[in-house]
Each structure stands twice: as C-alpha cells, then as structure tokens.
C-alpha cells in the first residue's frame, strides 16, 4: 500500500470538484488493477515454420485496457519469438480476434477487467467466493489470426473503433448521471482524446486530468467509504442538511442515477436507473439495489419494524417498504455474491460512492454477480 502513499496530495489531478484523498486512492487502486492473461495462438492457424511450443503470450493486463490495445505487444512478441520473417510479413493485426477456451467470442469493447470478472462468475470452478481472494490463474484466451467474425464482434476490430465505442460509453454514462451529455460535449476534442490516450498508456494522471471533469466525486463532508458503524447517523441526516458546498450539486450523491450494469453468469446484462439516495434521503446501497433488481438471488431481508415477515417479492417491491438492513452476515447467507473490479463488494457499499471510486475508465460501474457454491 505504501506505493500509493503519494496520492494523499491533490496536486496532480484537478477538476471542478475537490476530490478527497480517499476517493483518489480508490480510483488509483482500481486503475492500477491488472489481470493475468494467457494468450495462445490457435495451433491450427500457426503459419509454417513457426516456433511451436512458444506460441503463448503471458501478460498482466490493466483492467481498464481493451483487447485491441494489446495487439502491438502481442505482435512484437510473436514476431520476435514465434513467426519467421515470411509469416510476419503476411499476417495482419486487423484480422486478429479472441475467444476464450469455451469458444465464447471476447468483446473488443469490454474492458479487460470486465472480461476477466465475467469469466470468473461464469466458470463453475472459481465461483466459490472464498477461492476468489487468491485467484491468480490466468484467463486462457485463444487468438485467431484470420477471418474475424465481424457480425459477432459488432465492430471493426481496430483501436479506432474501440476508441469510438469508449467515447460512446462515456457519453451514455454522462447522460445516465445528468439527463444530458453537457459535461462530455463541453470539453474539447483534444481533451477527450487525452482520456483515451490515458487508457492506452495506462496513465492515471493523464486520464483523470480530464475524467475528473466528468465523473463526479464524493463530497468531503460525506463519509467516503461506507463504514458499517456510521449507517445509523447517515439515515438520520438528510443530504440537504450537509451545508451544501458550491460543488456539491455536481457531486456523486446528486446525480440523477449512477451508471451501473449488472452481469449475471453466462447471461443477461441488467441495467436500470439507480438513484444515489432513497426516498428517505438515506444512501442507496448495493444490497438494496441487488435485492430490488434480482430478489431471487439477493432476497430482501424482512425489516425488524414490520410485524409479519414477507416472502421475497418477484420483480420489485413497493418503494414504501422499509429499507433492508444489510450486514456482513447477510452477505454470507445470500446465494450470490457481487464482484466489482475483481473485489468482493460489501452489501452496505453506497452506490454513489461506488460510482465515484470504483467506476471503470468508461464511466460505468460493472457489477459481476456470481453464485455461491458454499451456501447452505
């Protein structure tokens, strides 16, 4: 952790918001996160005279990067070690594409961290929450050298198309937060490009110099992380009582909705509006959102104030229902778990805080939901 000690100061990243040091710390931890990949060239497609046995490329790839951004370093490796000169001249990066071992096409426009986490929740052998903590097994990827299935990749397999998709996601997230894309459109093209360069170079300062104008921060007057003991005091303190700072109306707790996507194993991606605060002014938490969106996997806990215990309701429950009371023991007894940036997220995490601190580079908070195998 000492390596991140320098983020205490706010000198390098400036924006219209005052960003608390703890927010910067979590942003940096997310940003510096990497995942192990094993990229193997499909043995049937290896050109003649290739040095077989070496056709595997290993990399700790940044979670915020995209597969097309790895192509140059993969190419360098293959040229140096595996291919002969003739093959090197005929192969074109534009034709390269990726699958996982099950033959699932890997998306060019998904951050690598999301691809990794999505694989984790979808593969049975790793879905035990306890095993996740030290999961260092690389994600095995098959690389093909020809005939990219354009209809399934849904975009041109090149970094420029990837950049356009990234910008589209940034704008969509901006629209989710504020109901318009003014923050994105008000920054110059050069600055927008700077964000993408930051992703490409895995440069935290370069990216956040611009992104901090778009992705809202937590306000210093609010508790940054959701410490379990403070939840009572927060419930009694409506947001309006915070003596609003000038920038507070642009803060993470004042957005219309937090940009969140929920990924289920091998399955659908769910997205809905996620207000940062509930009607009673208390922060919207992860467990509350999950038990609202997917109650069969995260059954709402009957509140102690209700006399009759109600069974979990199917799709949604009335807004007037008392809020759930999440705790660490609740998380252990549920059938599923939530992974954010590869980390098991506590149910009491506040959605606004997650959106400010653990968001991906494209502005989206990706929550991968896996099934527990140790549930009794």
């Amino acid at each position, binding site marked *: 952790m000492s390596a991140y000690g320098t983020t205490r100061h706010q000198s390098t990243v400036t924006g219209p918001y005052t960003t608390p040091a703890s927010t910067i710390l979590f942003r940096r931890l997310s940003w510096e996160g990497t995942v192990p990949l094993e990229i193997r060239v499909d043995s049937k497609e290896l050109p003649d005279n290739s040095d077989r046995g070496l056709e595997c490329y290993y990399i700790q790839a940044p979670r915020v990067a995209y597969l097309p951004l790895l192509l140059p370093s993969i190419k360098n490796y293959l040229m140096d070690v595996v291919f002969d000169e003739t093959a090197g001249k005929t192969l074109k990066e534009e034709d390269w594409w990726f699958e996982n071992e099950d033959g699932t096409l890997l998306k060019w426009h998904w951050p690598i961290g999301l691809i990794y986490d999505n694989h984790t929740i979808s593969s049975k052998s790793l879905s035990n929450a306890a095993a996740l903590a030290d999961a260092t097994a690389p994600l095995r990827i098959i690389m093909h050298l020809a005939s990219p299935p354009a209809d399934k990749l*849904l*975009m041109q397999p090149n970094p420029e198309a990837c950049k356009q998709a990234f910008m589209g*996601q940034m704008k969509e997230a*901006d629209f989710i937060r504020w109901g318009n894309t003014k923050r994105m459109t008000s920054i110059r093209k050069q600055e927008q490009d700077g964000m993408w360069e930051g992703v490409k170079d895995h440069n935290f300062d370069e990216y956040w110099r611009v992104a901090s104008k778009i992705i809202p921060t937590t306000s210093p007057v609010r508790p940054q992380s959701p410490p379990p003991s403070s939840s009572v005091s927060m419930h009694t303190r409506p947001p309006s009582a915070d003596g609003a700072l000038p920038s507070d109306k642009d803060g993470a707790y004042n957005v219309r909705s937090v940009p969140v996507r929920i990924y289920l*194993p091998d399955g659908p991606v*769910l997205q809905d509006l996620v207000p940062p605060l509930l009607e009673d002014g208390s922060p919207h938490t992860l467990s509350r959102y999950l038990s609202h969106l997917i109650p069969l996997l995260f059954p709402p806990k009957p509140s102690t104030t209700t006399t009759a215990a109600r069974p979990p309701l199917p799709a949604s429950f009335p807004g007037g229902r008392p809020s759930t009371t999440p705790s660490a023991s609740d998380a252990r007894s549920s*059938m*599923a778990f939530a992974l954010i940036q590869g980390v098991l997220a506590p149910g009491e995490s506040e959605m606004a805080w997650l959106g400010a601190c653990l968001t991906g580079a494209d502005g989206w908070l990706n929550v991968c939901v896996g099934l527990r195998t140790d*549930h009794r």
Partner: protein
Amino acid sequence: MTAADLADPPTEALAALQTYKQKDPLKVVVLFKAIGNAPILKQKFYKITAANRFQAVIQFLRRELGYKPGDPLFTYINNAFSPAPDDPVINLYKSFSTNDHLIVCYSTTAAWG
C-alpha cells in the same frame, strides 16, 4: 482448492438465475428521427421486442431505409450518444425512454461522434 469449491451452486440459486435468463416477450415503442439529410421513414413508430440487442434496431432501420451493409449509417439515442450494439433494447428503454418512446436518431454522417 478443496472439493467443496468445485461443488455445484445450490439448485435454488440455479433456478433463480434461470428466471432472470428468460427472454422477456415485452415490446417497446421506438421512435425513429432522421437527422440532417438522412431519408425520412414513412412510419416513425415501431414496436420492437425489448429483449433484442440494439444491433437488431440498427439492422431493422437499415432494412427499412434499403441501405446496403457498406452504406454509412450512424444511430444515436436522444440526440446524444451511440449505444454499444450489444446493449439490450430493454436496458436503453428503462434508462432513456421519453414519454414511453425510445428515441433513435439516425444520420448518414457522424453527428455527435
């Protein structure tokens, strides 16, 4: 890793997951708006299966316009952004619909790239 780690998730959890994988037969109304010199459709409102991906909306629009695969066509939600082609229509509808319509603008040139 112990044997317990490799156990199947409980049946209850798998059944719950299956519920959320079922395709919703719900249809939603999409309103197409031409931008710039893009041709205007005779019919503007269409009912589209919400479980479809946005790519299906793009393909539908191309067909209605009689566009060939190579012809340039840019699509935007609410005059503001291009969604990912694999975004389910239901997600876009839930987040961005206006008066129960999902407004899809289309252009032959990049408008809000």
